[in-house]
């Protein structure tokens, strides 16, 4: 988080300016009607949404901020692979909203957002009531494209889980792994870009291999990929060979790795050129798009994702709606929790600035993706991003990737840093601390 957006002096200057007009709007009354500084509704309480709600209040405590999130306890995707590997309890990736409510005064509504009327500036909630907003933040995450892979609809996911949203699906996959015979084949089908968490499928097979090596050593892991290359590929493949021998086999797009059909009843997949693979446990990471509420708001384009204005993360298609996190088209920034958190701070600053009619300081974002290959074996890739020539670009010379030739001590320290990172970002986002 140390790279986040701006220098402190400018932030303080801006806070001073907005603080001067601050007068808390009474609840339920649109803020503009009584001269208050504004009402911001945030939809989605993951890394992006929870961070946005908190930082809106930090930048201007007088803002009225409402967070709409159905669940009272949110489970992060980061570190669920460690649960699958047996390195963590599932509850350790769960977070609540107490800090947002109690310390920051965010009005947290545990309900769904059903619709958005951009012209009227309203959000319709699960009970049919509406909220009026001056600015809206959407952090809707991803939606599975149920129509994109033959045989893989919502019913199929009950037999061949995606486990790409943390929760029941994660628990189901874990139960299936535990029930699998020693000597079975775990198959993971990885999608083409873009998708949530680029290193995720590769960390997942690492953690599954760790579980199998420990409990079911005759088993195999087959990774069928719709890509010819992936995040931290060299590091992952070195680690797989070193720790798991030949347990993990990766089949690239150009070796006929793309799954085109799923038979969830038979736990069988078929690849583009007609190869069929039978699984003991079948984990399909399917093609994705922006969370469905983004469609209702009219902010998605033909790709199914949300184009944004780079400097502010306001939608290019609908004004006063800001979108952060996995739903956005923000490449070269990856779809990661870290990035969602950083984007949310930029969007919060943009909103506070626009409501105060101030120019916002220039944005920059940082990201680190840690992956755990085995207990005490971590790798990472990091980058810093800024707006260059009107587009988001990686800052020249920033970031980097773990060295290929690092010693075991280096890998062990990176695994420790990964835990430090997770604890820090969860504390920054939800205010929760490790038990």
């Amino acid at each position, binding site marked *: 988080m140390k790279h986040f957006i701006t220098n402190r002096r400018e932030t303080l200057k801006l806070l001073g300016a907005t603080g001067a007009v601050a007068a808390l709007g009474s609840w339920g009354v649109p803020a503009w009607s009584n001269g208050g500084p504004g009402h911001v509704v945030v939809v989605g309480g993951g890394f992006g949404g929870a961070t946005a709600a908190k930082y809106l209040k930090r930048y201007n405590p007088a803002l009225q901020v409402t967070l709409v999130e159905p669940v009272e306890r949110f489970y992060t995707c980061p570190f669920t692979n460690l649960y699958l590997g047996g390195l963590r309890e599932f509850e350790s990736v769960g977070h609540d909203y107490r800090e947002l409510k109690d310390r920051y005064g965010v009005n947290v509504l545990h309900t769904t957002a059903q619709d958005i009327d951009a012209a009227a500036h309203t959000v319709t909630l699960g009970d049919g009531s509406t909220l009026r907003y001056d600015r809206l933040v959407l952090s809707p995450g991803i939606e599975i494209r149920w129509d994109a892979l033959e045989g893989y609809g919502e019913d199929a996911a009950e037999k061949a889980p995606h486990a790409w949203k943390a929760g029941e699906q994660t628990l189901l996959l874990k139960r299936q792994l535990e029930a699998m015979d020693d000597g079975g084949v775990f198959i993971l089908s990885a999608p083409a870009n873009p998708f949530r968490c680029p290193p995720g499928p590769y960390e997942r097979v690492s953690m599954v291999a760790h579980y199998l090596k420990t409990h079911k050593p005759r088993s195999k892991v087959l990774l069928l990929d719709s890509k*010819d290359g992936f*995040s931290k590929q060299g590091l992952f*493949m070195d680690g797989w060979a070193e720790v798991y021998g030949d347990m993990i086999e990766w089949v690239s797009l*150009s070796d006929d790795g793309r799954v085109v059909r799923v038979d969830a009843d038979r736990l069988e997949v078929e690849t583009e050129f007609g190869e069929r693979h039978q699984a003991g446990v079948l984990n399909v990471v399917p093609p994705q798009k922006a969370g469905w509420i983004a469609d209702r708001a009219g902010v998605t384009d033909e790709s199914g994702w949300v184009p944004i204005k780079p400097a502010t993360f306001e939608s290019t298609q609908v004004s006063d709606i800001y979108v952060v996190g996995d739903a956005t088209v923000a490449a*070269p920034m990856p779809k990661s929790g870290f990035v969602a958190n950083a984007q949310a701070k930029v969007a919060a600053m943009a909103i506070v600035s626009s409501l105060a009619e101030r120019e916002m300081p220039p944005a920059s974002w940082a*990201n680190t993706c840690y992956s755990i290959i085995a207990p005490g074996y971590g790798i990472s*890739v990091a980058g810093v991003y800024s707006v260059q020539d009107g587009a988001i670009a990686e800052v020249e010379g920033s970031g980097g990737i773990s060295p290929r030739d690092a010693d075991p001590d280096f890998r062990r320290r990176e695994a420790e840093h990964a835990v430090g990172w997770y604890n820090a970002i969860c504390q920054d986002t939800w205010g929760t601390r490790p038990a």
Partner: protein
Amino acid sequence: MRLTKPVFRGDRRSFLRSGAGVLGVGGLLLSAPSLLLARQPWERLDVVRELLDGSEPSTTGIDLDLPLVSEDGSSVSLSVSVDSPMSDDDYVESIHVFGAGNPNPEIAAFRLTPAAGKAVVATRVRLNESQTVIAVARTSRGEMKVATRDVRVTVSGCLSRNGDSSAMGLDNPRVRVPPNPQAGNPAEILTLINHPMETGLREGEDGELIPKRIVERFQVELDGDPVFEAELYQAVSANPYLRFHVKPRAGELRFSWTEDTGETVEVTETLDPA
């Protein structure tokens, strides 16, 4: 386990570093008068203007599809479809694809016959940077059609920059022909071969340029009659992938891939309509 060096990365800096010396002025061939008069993207490329040869192309009845944003310039899905009856006296005879921002703008040229049944082709291409991609189709009646698409190429920080192949030459040709295609309904054929598609612009570990070595021609015949042919350039991704159609009739399909070394690999498949 295959770990090889990138062949042609979607990263402009490294590409220019390896390519600038060979290319000199690059392949864009902009001349001052054409630049001044150019109103459309295709008018800015000499190779496209030569192909059009003064005719005014239509921009309807042709569709060029690529993702708006691509996170890996080394392998970008591309498809072109042209509305055409594909009858003996009115069919699409060629589709040319160009990348205006590539060091060499030619990407591929496809030649079709009425036996293809449907003027839809797809492949995967290398795009050096964000740019306009152009497709030009010519029908047997001499009509020209053109489509353009602006593509943003970026490389995600969490994504790798390969998309390369460990194959040395022509390796593992794969073909997928539907088992019993319906007569009268053009059957979709997929082909893939493992090949590095060395651009000749990339430095090896010794700092020397790795010589160009590409699959330059792909041909499909049905009982000896030409169905589909593709001329490939360096901008076709490693492990060339091609998707096209054939009008089902019982016979033997012969597929051949030819390298610029002259080496050829052939595969045959029986076409057995329902």
